């Protein structure tokens, strides 16, 4: 393509570059000028991650053709502030904790800068409007709005912005804040390698079809095409987690619209796309099935010929399109219903949803001369990805070195490889680095979604509100592959009674295959679905027996010693405290105005799963390295509370410990991030590794000081005799001696074991340590003519056991609330015969800053029995209760029957009409 010279001013300096008419300003910055602080979350103007200032105005750089800025002044995040010399807006974001995954942060900073260039003290409404084009999936905007308030109020200063106090309970600044707020953090698509080319996946245009032939000859002839791969020339095996039913390419037939059938790499992405469009595939369409109930009928088309042939770790009954079935019983359900004064039945439905990370999937693979392949990727599980690649492509695990980059949000969406295998195959074929990035459109049907669910509940209650029987039928539509279907059903079953004591329970979980986009394990899998069904049902019960919904909950809420449906005995149960605090926060007992309603919902969740191992090594100068194989997908636990716990274990200041971030060659193996395990599991092992190395230091010092270990204490940078600080030895000396003598560091090690939590029942996932409890309450008003809901205020109460870093805990909660509210109000993947109708952020709507209600976050700290420090996980649970709380508040306002999400104006309006007729 013809290039032209573009002259403009960039961050105050003259620039002259060659671009094509097709080059967007965003590409000119990221590719031509290698300024990768400006991000691409969508490319369609909907997310704001590409925000720059153009002649002083904040604009989306993906919406501007590069040649349009001839003679203009452009300011990017790189021109705003540097680490060590932050712009006041950046200081405010760091100080108030407005940064999590950091992917939206550069754009957010640019929008805020443009606001503060015009006004010094904008009001909250103005701030919300100013950042309403900038989507953030992590923070719920709350701390970003707080940052703007603090800046306007003159409460931000450079010295105080970064809090280095690593004591437990301190709001220590996460250590990656500065690199993220300045756009210096390197995400997967920022990786640039010499000779790198670009790949795309060719996907099935049909929901269900036989592949008759694949002809790549025309595509191969296109100049610039370097590699094409498909099932024809790839050695493949099935892979997955519990259930292994997935292969890298479709073989013989495609099962959903979007399934990969081939991949192409070329010197530019445009050529690769063009070549992909020239691959001729002959399909013969097959009858397809999309509805999960229909899928279970005898004459439904089979998505998999024999699904029972796939390896599955758990016992189950499988046949036809039934991917998984789960039955759990407790007590005597018939007897329970016989005892009931009222029996309340309803069916609830939640839609397919998207994890919604603003960062799209991106991976880069590079083969080396020894036959090994390095993969840079945005993953929650670097080691699992190595195993996936090995299994999927039938290679030894040692073939792959996975280098996790910064993760621009995961939420369960980055647990499963959706580009890595193709990048690897193409890179091998082309013998050069290949980078692949999903477009936002592909993100919506080429990755795993949240399971849509239908939940039938039948509950028996006594007049006084005692719940006596509860029968549950949960149906999850897993789409074309069942990768996480069984796991989702199993986790959901734990939530099927809510946090309530019900003696007689019968739960059936069904997971069906259909020709829809497959589903995965999205933040709090099963949680929002069950929280909606169960909590809406509890309110329905309360109305039936004419009891206050809060009182009904308090009457039945779990207490210490109660059991989950898998027979796990619960300890440190704070359910009632959470409920009461949430209710108080929105003045539950005060009367409602016309058209206004209040709703409350409770939930519980598990903390931490799987074991882990951490190492702490000494440096020769008496500082330390914390080594763990896990990654931080944004919440910040690894970048703050885990370090705080390590510092606590050692007794040294937190900044004398460096967090080592590496790759699967250099780091100890770990399961990765997910399951609310970061602070609970990794933090615990970091603490114990720190205690281990501390003991060694004390022993070393005892020899040096000729004292008894028991008389010594480690204080900051030295070991000293208690009560006699003059008798001391510096850590720097101890470590130097040790390194010199042993030719290596002192190493503290700790393994946290995955000991099964005892349960009285057989259950696929059984029990989990440190159950956590939460309750949310919301006040809203609704326009009963249009169906529009306006959230007035929100309260989220979470028992975190021990808030190691309160800012981090609150951030998780606020972000989870935003995600849950999204599901309650607007998020929904709309499929029409397997075609996603709303593939992008223009029609798959995340909450904006204007939609997020003022939110009060209340931390309860009732320590878990499992030590140390009584931590309970908080990463996932906040996502669940908003669905129930909003539904209940709506019912409170208008006395409707709410059984479906999301509560769009149209849905609310339909419910109002049903009530009227």
């Amino acid at each position, binding site marked *: 393509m013809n290039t032209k010279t573009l002259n403009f001013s960039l961050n105050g300096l003259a620039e002259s570059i060659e671009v094509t008419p*097709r080059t967007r300003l965003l590409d000119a910055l990221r590719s031509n000028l290698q300024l990768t602080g400006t991000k691409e979350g969508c490319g369609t103007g909907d997310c704001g991650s590409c925000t720059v200032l153009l002649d002083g105005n904040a604009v989306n750089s993906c*919406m501007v*053709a590069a040649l349009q800025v001839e003679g203009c002044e452009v300011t990017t995040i790189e021109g705003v502030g540097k680490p060590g010399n932050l712009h006041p807006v950046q200081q405010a974001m760091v100080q108030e904790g407005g940064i999590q995954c950091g992917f939206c942060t550069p754009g957010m900073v640019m929008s805020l800068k443009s606001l503060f260039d015009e006004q010094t003290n904008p009001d909250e409404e103005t701030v919300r409007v100013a950042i309403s084009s900038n989507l953030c999936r992590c923070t719920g905007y709350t701390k970003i709005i707080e940052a703007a308030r603090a800046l306007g109020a003159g409460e931000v200063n450079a010295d105080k912005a970064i809090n280095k106090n690593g004591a437990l309970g301190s709001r220590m600044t996460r250590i990656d804040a500065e690199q993220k707020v300045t756009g210096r953090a390197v995400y997967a698509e920022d990786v640039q390698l010499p000779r790198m080319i670009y790949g795309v996946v060719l996907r099935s245009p049909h929901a269900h079809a036989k592949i008759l032939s694949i002809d790549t000859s025309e595509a191969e002839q296109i100049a610039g095409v370097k590699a094409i791969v498909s099932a024809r020339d790839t050695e493949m095996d099935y892979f997955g987690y519990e259930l292994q039913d997935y292969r890298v390419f479709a073989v013989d037939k495609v099962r959903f619209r979007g399934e990969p059938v081939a991949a192409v790499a070329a010197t530019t992405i445009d050529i690769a796309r063009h070549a992909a469009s020239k691959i001729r595939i002959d399909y013969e369409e097959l009858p397809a099935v999309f509805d999960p109930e229909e899928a279970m009928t005898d004459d439904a088309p089979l998505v998999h010929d024999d699904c029972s042939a796939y390896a599955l770790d758990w016992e189950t009954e499988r046949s036809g399109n039934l991917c998984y079935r789960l039955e759990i019983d407790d007590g005597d359900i018939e007897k329970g219903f016989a005892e009931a004064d009222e029996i309340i039945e309803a069916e609830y439905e939640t839609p397919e949803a998207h994890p919604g990370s603003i960062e799209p999937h991106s991976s880069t693979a590079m083969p080396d001369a020894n036959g090994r392949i390095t993969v840079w990727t945005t993953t929650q599980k670097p080691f699992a990805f190595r195993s996936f690649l090995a299994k999927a492509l039938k290679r030894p695990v040692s073939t792959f070195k996975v280098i996790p980059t910064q993760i621009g949000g995961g939420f369960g969406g980055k647990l499963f490889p959706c580009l890595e295998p193709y990048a690897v195959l193409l890179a091998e074929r082309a013998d050069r680095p290949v980078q692949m990035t999903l477009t936002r459109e592909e993100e919506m049907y080429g990755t795993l979604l949240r399971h849509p669910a239908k939940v039938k509940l039948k509950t028996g209650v006594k007049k006084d509100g005692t719940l006596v029987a509860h029968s549950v039928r949960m149906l999850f539509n897993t789409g074309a592959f069942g990768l996480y279907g069984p796991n989702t059903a199993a986790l959901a079953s734990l939530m099927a009674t809510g946090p309530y004591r019900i003696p007689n329970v019968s739960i059936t979980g069904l997971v069906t295959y259909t020709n829809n986009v497959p589903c995965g394990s999205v933040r709090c899998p099963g949680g929002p679905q069950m929280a909606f069904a169960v909590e809406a049902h509890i309110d329905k019960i309360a109305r039936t027996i004419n009891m206050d919904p809060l009182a009904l909950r308090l009457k039945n809420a779990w207490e210490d010693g109660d059991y989950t449906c898998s027979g796990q005995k619960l300890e440190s149960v704070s359910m009632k405290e959470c409920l009461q605090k949430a209710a108080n926060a929105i003045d539950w007992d005060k009367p409602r105005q016309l058209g206004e309603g209040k709703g409350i919902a409770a939930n519980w969740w598990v903390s931490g799963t799987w074991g882990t191992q951490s190492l702490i090594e000494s440096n020769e100068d008496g500082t330390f390295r914390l080594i763990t194989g896990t990654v931080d997908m944004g919440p910040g636990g690894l970048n703050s509370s885990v370090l705080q716990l390590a510092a606590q274990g050692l007794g040294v200041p937190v900044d004398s410990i460096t967090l080592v971030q590496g790759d699967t060659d250099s780091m100890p193996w770990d399961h990765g991030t997910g399951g609310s395990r970061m602070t609970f599991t990794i933090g615990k092992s970091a603490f114990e590794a720190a205690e281990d190395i501390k003991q060694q230091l004390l022993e070393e010092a005892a020899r040096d000081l000729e004292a008894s270990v028991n008389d010594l204490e480690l204080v900051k940078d030295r070991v000293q005799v208690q009560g006699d600080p003059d008798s001391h030895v510096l850590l720097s000396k101890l470590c130097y001696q040790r390194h010199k003598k042993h030719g290596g560091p002192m190493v503290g090690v700790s393994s946290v074991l995955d000991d099964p939590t005892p349960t009285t029942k057989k259950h696929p996932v059984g029990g989990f340590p440190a159950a956590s409890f939460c309750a949310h309450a919301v006040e809203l008003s609704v326009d009963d003519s249009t169906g529009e809901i306006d959230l007035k205020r929100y309260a989220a109460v979470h028992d975190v056991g021990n808030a190691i870093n309160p800012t981090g805990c609150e951030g998780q909660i606020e972000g989870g609330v935003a995600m849950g509210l999204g599901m309650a109000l607007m998020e929904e993947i709309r499929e029409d015969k397997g075609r996603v109708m*709303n593939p992008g952020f223009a029609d798959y709507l995340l909450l*904006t800053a204007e939609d997020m209600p003022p939110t009060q976050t209340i931390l309860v700290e009732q320590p878990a029995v499992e030590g140390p420090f009584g931590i309970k996980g908080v990463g996932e649970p906040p996502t669940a209760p908003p669905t129930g709380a909003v539904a209940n508040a709506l019912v409170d306002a208008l006395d409707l029957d709410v059984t479906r999400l999301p509560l769009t104006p*149209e849905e609310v309006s339909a419910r109002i009409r049903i009530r009227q007729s």
Partner: protein
Amino acid sequence: MINDFDFLQARSLTEALDILSANSDVLAIAGGTNVMVNMKRAPLETECLLDLSKLDELKTISEENNCIRLGAGVTFSHLLNWKPGGVIEDLMQPMCRAFAGPLIRNLATVGGNVCDASAAADLTPVLVALDASVELQSASDGIRTLNLVDFLQGVRKTARRKDELLTAITFSRPDADDCCFYYKLGKRKADAISIVSLAMIVKLEKDKVASSRISLGAVAPVAIRATTAEKILQGAILNDETIRACTEAAISDSSPIDDFRAGGDYRRQMVGVLVEKGLNAINNA
């Protein structure tokens, strides 16, 4: 092969018009907020992009003899900051606040919104209610003026000839005591696509409606006038009965589609709801 296109930046309106008359396949780009989205989704089918963003002569708002002239290159941020007072301000301000988000508002132009001719465009119902005209200019024929409702011919179809640019939108300032109402119904508070939008101007004389213009967005291929509804209002007293009849008429004036953004039934009902809201608001003011 991948199509190759050229890029030209016009430095003056004359230059832009000359380029258009000399080349048959030129696509104008102003704020780019439609063009760039289309380019992201599929290769652009054009030989040349003609950039209008440097044409300062298109970026002004002026008023002469009660006639307002919006240059085609005026952005929605500019429009939001414009304080003309009266009905114009009362319609334009809420429309602009509900238009996309601030980033897009800094780029998107009024000319682009009208020329893109999307069914869900938000400016056009306001302009239709203001009975606006568009000014089209070409190198060969100079300026011609068309009524906006004649200019908008269908979804992404306008009466613009290939060699023409839309240079301005003009409309008369409504009388100071005219009443108006604007409402955009979307799925979220910021940056939402219209499900239905309504702009109306009503002239009351004593307690009777002397005249009215009711315009609806996103319920027909283009922004429409609810003419049957307007007829019912003509000369009527604004009471519950009139409002009900007018609401019914507006619903029948609309012909919304059924899509994943909203069902046709809902859109139709909302036409009624918004018209009723509007008339009640005007009646109670």
